[in-house]
């Protein structure tokens, strides 16, 4: 089973990299870009076949290492 993890910055956390990307898009002539927030995408290949157990496992991985919950949220997608 594969887990797809999206890690995003919480609302209110300043994202200077996202702001720089938005600025660069404007420079390239892309108008109407209101805001850019940069995050991370992580794919994990798991032995686990049981969806509930896999979800629990990846949830712990996120809380312990993959995300820093002081500033980041995470969302987990499981794919067979």
């Amino acid at each position, binding site marked *: 089973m594969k887990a797809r993890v999206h890690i995003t910055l919480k609302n209110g*956390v*300043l994202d*200077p*990299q996202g702001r*720089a990307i938005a600025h660069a898009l404007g420079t390239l002539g892309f108008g109407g870009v209101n805001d850019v927030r940069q995050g991370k995408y992580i794919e994990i290949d798991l032995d686990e076949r049981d969806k509930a157990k896999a979800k629990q496992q990846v949830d712990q991985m996120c809380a*312990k*290492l*993959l995300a*820093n919950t*002081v*500033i980041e949220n995470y969302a987990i997608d499981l794919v067979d």
Partner: protein
Amino acid sequence: MKAAIVVFPGSNRERDAEAALTQAMGRKPIMVWHRDTELPDVDLVLVPGGFSYGDYLRCGAIAAHSPILREVKARADKGMAVIGVCNGFQIITEAGLLPGILLRNASLKFVCRNVRLKVETSQSLFTSQYEQGQVLSIPVAHHDGNYFADDRTLDELESNGQVAFRYCSPDGEFADEHNPNGSARNIAGIFNRTKNVLGLMPHPENAIEPLQGSVDGKALFASMVEALS
């Protein structure tokens, strides 16, 4: 005083830290490799600056979960002194020894220069040889030194006297232009609640000889030696 320095792949200030501790203690600290699971019997652990594990995932995140850091954390919880400098500060916050996190500098630039720091308290084993309100000149060299925590945590840090150093002007004034990285409330260094752990972005180990342009870092090491000998 006996001290150890924890070395990770990618650490690069461990020799500077060794020189500063040797100068202050009159003996060399023990270098501990990150794969070691046993920490020698010491009074102080220094986590040095650098780019442990190439800053993969988040600065300090991988090092924070190494076996030796678990041991450092366990001893710190029992009262052993720990100081994390620069990447070491990032590592010990990721390990949960200190609240908050160090984000990318607000300017997005790597900042490498001497900055002014105000000593917020001399009531700690790390700062007893300074005067409260004293302004120091100490170098910074980092890309991710922008201290962040939620407002409640910041209020708690302030009301508990856990702010150790703040970025300031040569006259000790606080303003955005004297803050090299956008750090919340100009914070450059903080203690844990029991004040046996200090994390700071500036490099006191690089301000110990007149040749380096400042000797303002010496008193920090002298404070630790006095408290822990």
